[in-house]
C-alpha cells in the first residue's frame, strides 16, 4: 500500500513541495483551532523539509530535476527545474520555516491575540510556499507570481507586531516591495519581448543568440534594481531595519533567514542562468556596479549597527552588511567568490535565525530587546546568552564557525580576481562586527542587573530547542563543511560554466 503510494508520487515530489504547504495553509483556515492549525503547519513544514532533503539527494546523485506542470512540455508549459543551487536554497527555506515553527506558539502568545493564531499560521505557510515556489520554478513569470505571494504574506506577518510602528514599517515595505516587484515584472517583459519565451533555460539560450542590445541591458538593470530592493541591497535597504525591528519575534527570525536569501537566489539565477557570465559581466560590466555597492553595504551596515541601542535593530543592520558579503560573492564572478556568496546564504540563515530566536527568548522573559534588558543575562539566562555569544562569533567570522567558512571563500575569490584590497576590506569589516557583538556580550556578562529588577528565568524549552538547533548548526557546519561547501561550490562551478 505504502509502496504503491510512493511509486505514484515519487516522481511528483517537486510539485508536492509547493502543493502540500499551500493546501495545508487552506486547511489551517478550516480547522480554525489554534493548536490544530499549529499541528497542521508543523506536520506539513517538517514534511517539506524531508521532501527538500530527498530532492537534494536526488539532485546530487542523478543531476538536475525537471518537472512539467500540467504535463505540458517546455516551453509551452511551466517547468519546475531544480539543480544544486535551488536545492540548497529550498532546504534553507523549508528548514528555517520548520524550526522556527517550534518556537511559534510560545513566542506568539505574547504578541498576537490567540484568536488570530490560525490566520497567522495560514499566512506563515503561504509565505513559505511563496518563497519555495520562487525557488523551484523554472519559469521567469512564475517567479513573479510566487514573489507576490511571499511578499503579500510578509507584509501581513510584519504588521502583526505589537506596537503601532509595525504598521508603518509594513506599509513602507509594501510600497518599496511593490515597486521592486513591478521592476522585476518590467524586466521580465523586456526579456520576453526580445526572445519570445519565459522558460529560464530557454531564455538563456535564446538571449545568447540575440546577443547584447539596448533592451536587454535595461532589462538587466531593472531586474537588478528590483531584486536589489527585495534583498535589501544598500542603499535600497531602508525598509529592512524597521520591518525586522517591529515584526513579531518569530516573524523576524523567519523572514530574516529566508526572504532576502530567496531574493538573492533570484538575482543569481537571472544573472548567471539567463544573462550568463559573458553578457552580464563581460559585455555589461555588472560587477563594476555591484562590487562597490557590496563593499559599501558591508561597511555602512556594520557601522550603523554599532550605534543601535535596540539589539533587534542592531542585528537588522548587521543583516544589511551580511547581504553585502553575499552580493560581493556574486559580483566577483569567479568560482571561489560565488561559492562564498552561495554558502553564505546557508550559513547566514543559520546564524541570523538563531540570533533572532535568542531575541525572541529575551523579549519573552524581559519584555524588551533593548540593550539595557541584556544586563546580567549571562547569569540569569545562561543558555540563551551562550547562544548569542556563539552566534555573534559566527557573525564575526571566527574559525570553527560558519562565518569563517564564508569569509574564507570570499577572500579566496577576491584574491583569484586579483583584487587584494577587497580581501583586506573583508577582514577589516569583520572587525566592525567584533565591536557590535562585544557591546552586547559586555553588558550580558559584566553589567549587573539593575537593582530591584524582576527575577528573570531561563527561556522555555520550546524556544531553546530551535535556537540551539540553529546555533549548534553554526558550529557543526563550521567544522564539517563538506555538505554546505560541497553543494555550493558544485553549484558555483555549474553557474560559471554557463550550463544550468
Amino acid at each position, binding site marked *: 500500500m505504502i509502496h504503491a503510494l510512493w511509486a505514484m508520487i515519487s516522481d511528483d515530489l517537486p510539485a508536492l513541495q509547493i502543493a502540500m504547504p499551500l493546501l495545508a495553509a487552506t486547511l489551517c*483556515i478550516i480547522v480554525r483551532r489554534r493548536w490544530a492549525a499549529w499541528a497542521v503547519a508543523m506536520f506539513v513544514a517538517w514534511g517539506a523539509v524531508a521532501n527538500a532533503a530527498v530532492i537534494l539527494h536526488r539532485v546530487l546523485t542523478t543531476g538536475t530535476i525537471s518537472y512539467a506542470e500540467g504535463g505540458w512540455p517546455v516551453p509551452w508549459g511551466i517547468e519546475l527545474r531544480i539543480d544544486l543551487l535551488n536545492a540548497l536554497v529550498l532546504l534553507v527555506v523549508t528548514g528555517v520555516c520548520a524550526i522556527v515553527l517550534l518556537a511559534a506558539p510560545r513566542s506568539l502568545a505574547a504578541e498576537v491575540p490567540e484568536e488570530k493564531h490560525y490566520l497567522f499560521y495560514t499566512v506563515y505557510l*503561504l509565505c513559505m510556499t511563496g518563497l519555495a515556489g520562487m525557488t523551484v520554478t523554472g519559469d521567469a513569470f512564475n517567479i513573479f507570481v510566487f514573489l507576490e505571494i511571499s511578499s*503579500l504574506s510578509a507584509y*501581513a506577518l510584519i504588521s502583526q507586531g505589537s506596537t503601532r510602528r509595525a504598521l508603518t514599517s509594513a506599509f513602507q515595505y509594501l510600497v518599496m516591495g511593490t515597486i521592486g516587484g513591478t521592476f522585476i515584472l518590467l524586466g521580465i517583459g523586456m526579456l520576453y519581448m*526580445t526572445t519570445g519565451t519565459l522558460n529560464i533555460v530557454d531564455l538563456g539560450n535564446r538571449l545568447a543568440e540575440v546577443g547584447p542590445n539596448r533592451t536587454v541591458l*535595461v532589462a538587466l538593470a531593472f531586474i537588478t534594481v528590483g531584486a536589489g530592493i527585495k534583498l535589501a541591497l544598500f542603499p535600497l535597504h531602508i525598509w529592512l531595519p524597521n520591518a525586522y525591528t517591529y515584526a513579531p519575534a518569530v516573524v523576524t527570525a523567519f523572514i530574516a533567514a529566508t526572504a532576502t536569501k530567496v531574493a538573492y537566489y533570484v538575482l543569481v539565477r537571472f544573472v548567471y542562468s539567463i544573462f550568463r557570465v559573458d553578457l552580464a559581466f563581460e559585455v555589461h560590466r555588472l560587477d563594476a556596479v555591484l562590487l562597490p555597492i557590496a563593499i559599501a553595504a558591508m561597511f555602512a551596515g556594520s557601522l550603523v549597527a554599532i550605534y543601535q541601542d535596540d539589539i533587534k535593530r542592531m542585528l537588522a543592520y548587521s543583516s544589511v552588511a551580511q547581504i553585502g558579503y553575499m552580493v560581493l560573492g556574486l559580483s566577483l564572478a569567479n568560482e571561489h567568490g560565488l561559492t562564498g556568496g552561495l554558502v553564505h546564504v546557508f550559513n547566514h540563515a543559520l546564524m541570523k535565525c538563531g540570533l533572532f530566536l535568542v531575541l525572541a527568548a529575551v523579549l519573552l522573559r524581559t*519584555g524588551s530587546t533593548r540593550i539595557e534588558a541584556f544586563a546580567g543575562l549571562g547569569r540569569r539566562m545562561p543558555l540563551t546568552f551562550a547562544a548569542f555569544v556563539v552566534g555573534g562569533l559566527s557573525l564575526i567570522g571566527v574559525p570553527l564557525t560558519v562565518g569563517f567558512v564564508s569569509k574564507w571563500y570570499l577572500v579566496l575569490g577576491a584574491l583569484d580576481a586579483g583584487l587584494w584590497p577587497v580581501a583586506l576590506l573583508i577582514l577589516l569589516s569583520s572587525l566592525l562586527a567584533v565591536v557590535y557583538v562585544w557591546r552586547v556580550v559586555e553588558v550580558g556578562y559584566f553589567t549587573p542587573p539593575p537593582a530591584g529588577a524582576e527575577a528573570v528565568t531561563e527561556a522555555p524549552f520550546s524556544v531553546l530547542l530551535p535556537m540551539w538547533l540553529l546555533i549548534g548548526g553554526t558550529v557543526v557546519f563550521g567544522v564539517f563543511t563538506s555538505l554546505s561547501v560541497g553543494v555550493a561550490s558544485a553549484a558555483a562551478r555549474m553557474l560559471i560554466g554557463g550550463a544550468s
Partner: protein
Amino acid sequence: MLDLVHLVLFTFLAVIAVAVIRLKDLFAAVMLMGIFSFLSACLFTVMDAVDVAFTEASVGAGISTILMLATLALTDSEEHPEHNRFKLLPLLAVVFTGGALLYATFDMPLYGDPSAPIHQYVAPHYLEFTGADIGVPNIVTAVLASYRGYDTWGETTVILTAGVGVLLLLGGHAVVERFRRRRSAGDEDGE
C-alpha cells in the same frame, strides 16, 4: 478609426495621470483613478485583449474603487497640501528611470509588427494546437487554465493571501482590544 480611438484614449489617460499628481481632494483622485482604469480597459479592447479589458473594468474600475472609497470613509478625504513641498530627488529618480526605459525602446520591435520574436515562438503553438489539445475556442482561457494553469493557481493564492491578510489586519477588533488591555495590565511597558 481605431487608431483615432487609441489616440484619444491615450490623451485622456495622460491628462488624468497628471491631474492625479495635482489634486488635493482624495475623493476626486480616487474617482479619477477609477476612470483611468476604465479608459485603460477600453484601450485593452482596442489592442484585442478582451479578457484583460473585462477584468480591468471589473477590478480596477469596480472593486478597487469601492475599497478606496471605503478607506476614505474611515480616514481623511483631503490631502494636507503643506506636506507637498517640491522635492527634486523624486523627480530626478523618475526622469532617470523613464530615460532608461526610453533608451530600451530603441531596440524593441515596432508596435503591431507581426515579425516580432514573441509572435514567432511559443504563442503560435498555442494558436495552432489549442483546438486539438484542449478544444476550447478562447485561447486565453486555454493558456490560463491549462498550459499555464500552475501560474493561475498561484494567482488564486495571491487573492487568498490578500483575503487572509486583510482578516489579520482588520478582523476581530474587539479581540485585539481585549488582548491589548490584558497585556498592558500584565506589564507596564506594554506599549
